[in-house]
């Protein structure tokens, strides 16, 4: 007697496939296709980077007004616990990410540098707000831009940056950690590996700035 089966839905198909797999009755082509769908190959670096990016431990490091906005990304409206970042560690030895939130004065700069040095590699730094990225509102004797004494991976502009802006910066850092940093203008203008001649430069050797990928610059 012939049994006719019509219109198997996807679930039934997969059920039958699993049954055949368990019995050892699957054909070679089907087995090949099944394995290709279920198994992913990658390198150890990529896997580790993926895991690292999804569980960065920031350091509790609030300096000034931006610290309040940093506290509000931990709060319920924009919750960075969604991304795995809610474990703020107090000790630099246990933290991966230092978010410089606020203005860095001349008295504080050596302290910040010492804390950054105490962090274990791999470590990243986000300069949050205008005051530590550039001088911000206060371009005077008392402040130091953070680029002067430590390597920064992501600068987040704003005064103070909205929690969404800081989250954008953090997610950019995450993609950088995971190895697929967005290349932005380098990609748009196909500029990677090119050299830029500064205007008015006569000596070609010293005047060029070579355009690198974001991941090749400083930071751990």
């Amino acid at each position: 007697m012939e049994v006719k089966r019509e219109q198997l839905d996807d679930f039934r198909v997969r059920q039958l496939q699993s049954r055949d797999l368990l019995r050892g009755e699957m054909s070679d082509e089907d087995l090949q296709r099944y394995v290709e769908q279920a198994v992913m190959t990658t390198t150890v670096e990529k896997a580790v980077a993926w895991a690292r990016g999804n569980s960065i431990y920031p350091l509790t490091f609030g300096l000034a007004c931006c610290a309040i906005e940093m506290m509000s990304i931990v709060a319920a409206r924009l919750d960075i616990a969604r991304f795995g970042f809610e474990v703020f560690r107090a000790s630099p030895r246990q933290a991966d990410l230092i978010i410089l939130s606020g203005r860095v004065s001349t008295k504080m700069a050596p302290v910040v540098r010492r804390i950054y040095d105490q962090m274990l590699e791999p470590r990243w730094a986000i300069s949050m707000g205008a005051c530590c990225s550039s001088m911000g509102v206060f371009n005077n004797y008392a402040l130091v831009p953070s680029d002067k004494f430590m390597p920064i991976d992501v600068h987040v502009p704003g005064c103070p940056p909205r929690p969404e802006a800081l989250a954008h910066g953090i997610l950019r850092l995450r993609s950088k950690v995971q190895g697929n940093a967005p290349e932005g203008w380098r990609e748009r203008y196909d500029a990677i590996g090119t050299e830029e001649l500064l205007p008015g430069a006569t000596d070609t050797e010293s005047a060029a700035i070579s355009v690198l990928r974001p991941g090749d610059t400083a930071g751990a």
Partner: protein
Amino acid sequence: MPDATGLELIAQELRDADAASVLDTVFQRGRAVLIVDAGRVHGVLATLQEKGYGFLASLHGVDYYPDEPRLGVLYELLDMDTVDRITVKARVHTDSPRIASVCDLWPGANHPEREVYDMFGVIFEGHADLRRILMPEDFEGFPQRRDYPIGGEPVLFTFNEETNYGKWQ
């Protein structure tokens, strides 16, 4: 605020006690200011404290460059019972910026006097621990004087990127 006549009465009382203490009185926009000789400011403030102005609301410095004497120390006093404010101003020259400390009258003058020292260079005699409070301990110069440069970093453009502080490599 004491009105203009009230201010004159206070000034007269102080002059009766010590003739050379009050140099001038200014009453402008509802604000009563006694301009006092810098050497006698402690006595004036003690008398005003006894009169009822028992709360030192603010102690701060002003640089009156280019008017001499250049550095001024202002004491904002408050009488909480009658809600009365009076200001005492004392001016010193930069070559001998010494003035008596009022920490014995108001212990809360400790930090503000250190700040005036830090920012303007006024030395408060009788202060227990006069050292810098806001700037680093080894800082040289008095930042809030008018002839101290504002400092800061030049804005980075492409043309001066390499010659300027040069970002961390």
